[in-house]
């Protein structure tokens, strides 16, 4: 049901029939980042936890349609290649499409904005039990209060379907708020908090509950099982412009997924570079 709604939203925004665009412009972005994940296996017990360093190259190419002074729609083709240093079975390629409707009814950078986005991607893994598709819908809004301080909030619905099993399928709902602080020299710091409820595929040596979708996974030499978790997400990030079209960034996220009395902690340390060819 959620997936159908996301696909419908994506179709409406990608093919805005009846809407005459005043203008078209190109979107072309590329990004490379390296992330250290302290709990790739999403395990609760420290002995089951595995960490890894992940390199990701991603890009998007498409068109932005200016509908009027306040509204624009963008449609992009997205691509990502993700490689794990240790757990190569998780190496994957993502290819998909995204569409977004952006509305800023006021004038200038301090006017509040609203963004509705939908995307669909095919995921192909080296270890093919993870192969599948991912559908995402997001609504976000934000405002800059002055040259230095901005706030944004987002709600993301994610639906993931594994091709061959139920363990890696699932969905989640994440609400988040991010505060941004910009300095005169271009440095931007941000702090965010998010709350997510949804399916996570976790791992353990022994399966916890036979009723959960479970399968044995060779990669981590343990059992994978899917459960609904409540996850708190804390993020800190910094970015700095290099010239007009390139940004370097670094940051960390701490996620605390809880189920009953068990905690599934995860930390991500990330740094990377993003370049725009617009």
């Amino acid at each position, binding site marked *: 049901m959620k997936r159908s709604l996301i696909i419908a939203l994506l179709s409406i925004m990608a093919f805005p029939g009846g809407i005459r665009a*005043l*203008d*078209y*412009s190109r979107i072309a*972005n590329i*990004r490379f*980042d390296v992330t250290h994940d302290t709990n790739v296996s999403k395990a609760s017990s420290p002995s089951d936890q595995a960490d890894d360093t992940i390199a990701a190259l991603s890009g998007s190419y498409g068109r932005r349609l*200016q509908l*009027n*002074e306040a509204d*624009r729609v963008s449609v992009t083709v997205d691509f990502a290649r993700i490689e794990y240093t240790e757990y190569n079975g998780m190496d994957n390629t993502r290819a998909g499409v995204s569409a977004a409707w952006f509305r*800023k009814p006021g*004038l*200038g*950078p301090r006017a509040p904005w609203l963004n509705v986005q939908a995307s669909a991607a095919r995921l192909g893994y080296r270890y093919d039990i993870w192969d599948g598709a991912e559908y995402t819908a997001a609504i976000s809004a934000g405002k800059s209060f002055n040259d230095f301080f901005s706030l944004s909030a*987002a709600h*993301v619905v994610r639906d993931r379907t594994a091709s061959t099993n139920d363990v890696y399928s699932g969905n*989640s709902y*994440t609400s*988040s708020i*991010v505060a*941004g602080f910009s*300095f*005169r*020299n*271009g440095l*931007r710091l*941000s*702090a*965010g908090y*998010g709350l*997510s409820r949804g399916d996570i595929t976790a791992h353990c040596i022994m399966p916890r509950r036979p009723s959960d979708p479970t399968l044995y996974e060779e990669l981590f030499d343990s059992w994978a099982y899917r459960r609904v978790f409540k*996850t708190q*997400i804390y*993020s800190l*990030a*910094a*970015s700095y*412009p*290099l*010239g*007009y*079209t*390139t*940004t370097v*960034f*670094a*940051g960390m*996220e701490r*996620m605390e997924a809880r189920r009953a009395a068990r905690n599934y902690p995860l930390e991500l340390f990330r740094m*990377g570079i*993003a*370049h*725009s060819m*617009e």
Partner: protein
Amino acid sequence: MGSRIITIIALFAAVAVAGAQVKGAEFQAVVKSDKKQVVEDAVVALVPMGGEIPEPEKTLTAVMDQVDKEFVPRVLPVRTGTKVSFPNSDNILHHVYSFSKAKPFELPLYKGAPANPVVFDNPGVVVLGCNIHDWMKGYIVVLETPWFGKTGDKGKTLIKDVPPGRYKIFLWHPESASKNLDPAGEAAIVKDEIAKKEYTIKLKGGKKKSRAPDPAGVINY
């Protein structure tokens, strides 16, 4: 014959004197930052102390273009009353606006050249933006005095035809974070001489906003 030659010489002399009176002297300013680096795009203005400022011509025009999603030039000093046109040399739409007190205005989505120029009739710094491309920022510095210049990449500007006398010097730069021109001292302009001065302006930084998407600070879980 002799009287005709004298008349011709007298006429040449009169024209030369008149020309000298109109031309006046030159003022050369070099602007450096507090870190001793030369500063490009600094506006230097001379305001006569006690002297009168001539009325601006009604035909003053200037151009603030938009090229590759940037304002060109980034800083445009003009005299009050100047008609500034805002052609869009890109093949996409721009939406130029300013909230500045000296000249609030808006040129909604357009390509090519707008029908009418914008007249800048009040002195002050006018900050320009584009509502589609938030990183675009330009500045029009509107001055009552006709004696002003903008520094080039070597931090230097030469202001010509300045009548002799004493002047107050004013400076401005986008990164000085000042909404108006700041006084920078005085200078004496002497006929047939080039007055050379060096000024230091304190810059508070202000890198241009990157066009690249900012992945930091997005929770995408």
